[in-house]
């Protein structure tokens, strides 16, 4: 093996990636982690350009420039509420790159183990492309967010996947003779990606986005095997395992299994049950609610996806300020699956300048709920639904929830009485200590802020 400068540089790049991920463990060091990972990528790109087999530069440079020109506005202009969509699109781009490289390598006439690695790379790559685009469509609401299920869906989907794998095996066995199968294989992978997302509802997006992240990483990893490139293997494996463990964490936070998320069609089953008669609820005006909030000693705010939709995070931060000024102890309770991607709520509240030590995880805050005067729920439903604990027949039975029902007063900001995403009725609305605050989250919180600050004088 001839020595080339890229070899030690690749090791350095791999070190930078690992060091970067390690620093992500705490907010205090996280930015250092990103810089380290950026440095790793820069080293990887520059040292690849220095490889002796890379001789023609013009298209590479143009490609890098075009990608940068597209990438910068995406990153800079994207509002924080759209972060899940951006992640999905970005995943589709990364997976597309991986799939196309695999395709080109295949047509170079590889054989043996390399072909097997290429098949895995392109299978994961192509299915992640369409799956990510579908996820994007659902998040952006081009496509209906509700899960679409049909009879025999599981068998149909697995049939498509099985066929794709069968073609792949055929190609591996005889890469030259069966090369004609390759376009069909690609088509099947693309179709499977679409089918994979069709039955998945918006509430399961955190799990799915994480899982697709994992696939994109594993695809890069398979490319590493095909090209005999250890740096690709390491970076791909880091991404693959991170996406995988995040999706496990998300599943656990919903008390559901992987297969249930992927094939469960969550939310569809329940729609029939929801049509019960209207029960009386207590509602309150902003004035009344503000008075209770202002007189409380402790307030816990529980944000959900509705906060993101209404863009209410900045108003909530103002409410937080106004209450703190009056000596109220305010905390935020964050459910692991609130929102459309892991950690979604934290980013939105951080954007609104809420100090992150006020964002409390579920396990830590639930113990305090019984001592809390008021919980204010903004755009969340299933994650505070006591049915998860009390009703074994409920579709969300067993899902860990934020124990809002234990606090002395519960306030829920909601547009109307329609059930939440999963279509499940919520007992919490009908409790005696519950006040429903009907209205748009953003404008309602704005009037709360006004009242709380005015009462103070």
């Amino acid at each position: 093996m001839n020595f080339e400068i890229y070899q030690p540089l690749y090791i350095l790049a791999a070190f930078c990636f690992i060091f970067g991920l390690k620093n992500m463990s705490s907010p205090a060091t996280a930015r250092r982690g990103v810089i380290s990972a950026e440095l790793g990528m820069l080293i990887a790109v520059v040292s690849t350009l220095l490889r002796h087999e890379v001789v023609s530069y013009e298209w590479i440079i143009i490609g890098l420039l075009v990608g940068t020109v597209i990438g910068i506005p995406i990153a800079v202009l994207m509002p924080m509420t759209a972060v899940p969509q951006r992640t999905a699109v970005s995943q589709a781009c990364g997976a597309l790159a991986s799939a196309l490289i695999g395709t080109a390598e295949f047509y170079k006439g590889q054989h043996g183990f390399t072909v097997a690695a290429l098949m895995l790379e392109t299978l994961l790559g192509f299915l992640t492309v369409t799956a990510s685009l579908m996820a994007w469509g659902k998040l952006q609401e081009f496509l209906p967010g509700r899960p679409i299920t049909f009879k025999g869906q599981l068998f149909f989907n697995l049939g498509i996947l099985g066929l794709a794998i069968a073609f792949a095996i055929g190609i591996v066995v005889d890469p030259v003779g069966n090369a004609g199968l390759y376009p069909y294989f690609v088509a099947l992978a693309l179709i499977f990606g679409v089918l994979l997302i069709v039955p998945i509802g918006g509430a399961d997006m955190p799990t799915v986005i994480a899982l697709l992240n994992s696939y994109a990483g594993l695809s890069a990893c398979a490319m590493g095997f095909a090209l005999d490139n250890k740096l690709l293997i390491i970076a791909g494996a880091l991404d693959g395992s991170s996406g995988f463990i995040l999706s496990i964490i998300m599943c656990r936070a919903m008390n559901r299994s992987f297969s249930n998320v992927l094939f469960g069609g969550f939310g569809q089953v329940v729609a029939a049950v929801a049509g019960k008669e209207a029960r009386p609820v207590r509602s309150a005006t902003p004035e009344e609610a503000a008075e209770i909030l202002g007189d409380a000693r402790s307030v816990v705010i529980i944000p959900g996806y509705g906060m993101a939709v209404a863009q209410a995070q900045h108003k909530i931060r103002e409410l937080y300020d106004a209450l703190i000024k009056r000596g109220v102890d305010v905390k935020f309770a964050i459910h692991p699956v609130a929102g459309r991607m892991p950690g979604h709520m934290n980013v939105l509240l951080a954007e609104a300048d809420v100090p992150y030590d006020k964002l409390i995880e579920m396990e830590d805050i639930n113990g305090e709920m019984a001592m809390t005067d008021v919980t204010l729920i903004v755009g969340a439903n299933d994650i505070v639904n006591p049915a998860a604990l009390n009703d074994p027949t409920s579709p969300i039975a067993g899902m860990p929830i934020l124990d809002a029902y234990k606090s002395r007063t519960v306030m829920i900001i909601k547009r109307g009485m329609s059930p939440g995403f999963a279509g499940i009725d919520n007992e919490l609305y009908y409790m005696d200590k519950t006040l429903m605050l009907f209205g748009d989250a953003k404008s309602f919180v704005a009037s709360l802020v006004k009242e709380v600050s005015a009462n103070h004088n």
Partner: protein
Amino acid sequence: MNYEFGFYVFMLAAFLGFELIRKVSPLLHTPLMSLTNAIASISVVGAIILSGEKDASTLSRVLGFIAVVSATTNLVSGYLITDRMLKMFKKREPGRK
């Protein structure tokens, strides 16, 4: 080519990934996903090799070029937005307004 060695690397890296990610606070799950998503754009390396080769076929050149563009898009936007997000995580700032 040494596949066996590749599998050792894969196993260790995957294990390391699991251990590192498990320790990440849920607070940072979104930036973490953006970052690992950006790291996955390491496929740009493969794209550069593919499109830079001396006698690459037209197919390789075309697919390689598209791959460079899309991997770079992934890379640039992934890193920039991760950094933008992390900039927002502050402990306690001097009172605004």
